[in-house]
């Protein structure tokens, strides 16, 4: 197969290589759980965590309209233990619904850092994956996991409530396996994330010390 073609479309190898270069620091899906045999207490705690998910729905984009539908009687997300949280202090999941403009990204980062470990991020819709229909927009970010550690992506524009619930179930599986939750990883690779964030956010007025 030819290396490149006349209109500059990358080949599969290039894309694979680029994705390896691209690889985000903290992600749950690819992570190998170092302790395969969990202790009993971990098992119990993970069971509790996976069945009580307090969601902070940060309605950034058009996806926010899917959340009420997910919570209503027809789809009833509460039967998984999913319920809304009012403030980041109480929340476990940061649910980012739709495109993120750079202006919003600043607030989202602060909200994420205000949450308490273990904390999970579910990115919602194609705009958070690769920009989606805003691939050439001048003020929406293209790949969320450059700026925040994302646990689960829900593809689609927009994903219907069924797929949203599927994403939650996927996150529950990850939690039970002990993979999910990248708060510590985020804190370890803070300077990498800060570098990416400050590249987008022009005047950076966050406090230096990580003490939210």
């Amino acid at each position: 197969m030819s290396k490149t073609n006349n209109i500059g479309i990358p080949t599969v190898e290039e894309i694979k290589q680029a994705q390896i270069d691209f690889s985000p620091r903290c992600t749950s899906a690819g992570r190998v759980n170092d302790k395969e045999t969990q202790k009993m207490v971990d098992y119990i705690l993970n069971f509790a965590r996976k069945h009580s998910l307090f969601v902070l729905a940060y309605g950034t984009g058009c996806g926010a309209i899917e959340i009420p539908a997910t919570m209503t009687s027809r789809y009833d997300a509460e039967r998984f233990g999913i319920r809304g949280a009012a403030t980041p202090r109480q929340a476990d999941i940061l649910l980012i619904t739709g495109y993120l403009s750079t202006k919003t990204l600043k607030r989202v980062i602060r909200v994420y850092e205000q949450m308490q470990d273990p904390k999970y991020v579910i990115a919602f819709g194609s705009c958070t994956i690769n920009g989606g229909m805003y691939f050439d927009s001048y003020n929406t970010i293209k790949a969320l996991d450059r700026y925040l550690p994302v646990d689960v992506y829900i593809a689609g524009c927009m994903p219907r409530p069924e797929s949203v619930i599927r994403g939650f179930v996927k996150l529950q599986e990850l939690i039970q396996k002990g993979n999910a939750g990248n708060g510590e990883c985020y804190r370890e690779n803070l300077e990498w994330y800060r570098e990416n964030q400050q590249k987008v956010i022009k005047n950076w007025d966050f406090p230096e010390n990580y003490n939210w």
Partner: protein
Amino acid sequence: MNEIIIKIGGAFLTAILAFTVGMFYAGLRRKITARVQNRVGPPIYQNFLDLLKLQSKSTNVAHGFMGHMAPIWIIIAAMTVLMFIPVLQNNLWFDNLTLKGDLIFLLYMMVFGSLGMALGAGQTGNPNSAIGVTRGLSQMVGFEIPFVMALVALMLQFKTTSIADLMHFQSSTGHWIILENPFAFLAALLSSLGMFRYSPFDIVGAPAELASGPMSEFGGKYLGTMMTGGAVFAFIKLVLFVDLFLGGAGNNSVEGIVGTGLGLLELLIKTFLFYMIPVFIGLVSPRFRTEQAIQFFWKWPSFFGLIAIGWALYKNGALG
């Protein structure tokens, strides 16, 4: 020595009972709400999972001295009030300090927890917390008045200020106070709607408009402790109402563990039946503004309270 062991064991037994029943009732409320809204709803043990998860948060955010004290004060108030309320009568394990305190003390001790929570919420510096606290305190001034009227009526009618005596009266003469002084029960029932803080009186911690009000800055173990305190307080209020009006529980002649079991069963049935009233009223109610809530409490419930006092005076012959 044996006395001491029984006292301490009974105290822990009561605490565990109150915690378990309160949490299960909270889960039950969520389940019933879901069923009424034609949903499946969370499992009934959902609140235990929430509590376990909140306690297992690996980082905590504290706002200083009062932020630390707030959950402790709530636990203190819950435990102290629990110790002074007779859960089962003439049962060795469950009369903890029943005769050592009376209704006035309980009235004031119940405020202790909410005061601590108010102070803790105040120190976080979140404006929503302060607004929620002011709403809660104002609403408390509303519903305390009819409740106190009902209690004063009972005190005057039965010439005692202690719950144990009231229970003893009901168990000795099989007359429940709900029949002896129905207006007092009415006033207390209406004010209990405000005490439970379900709809239509849930503007204190309204998540949509106040970001859950006073506890908006508390997460992790603090939030979990507040949930625990709330559950125990729900149980306390239910037991208090059952003791005052519905004849208490455990008044059976069966000896030993079987009698205790029967008493607990009776207690659960009565508390559950009473608990369903605020729950179902909350399910079908919109939300009152604060001043509307206060004015509601000062109109009909207080009117019933006044009638109750007159009724009590008439009953014990003070009015000729």
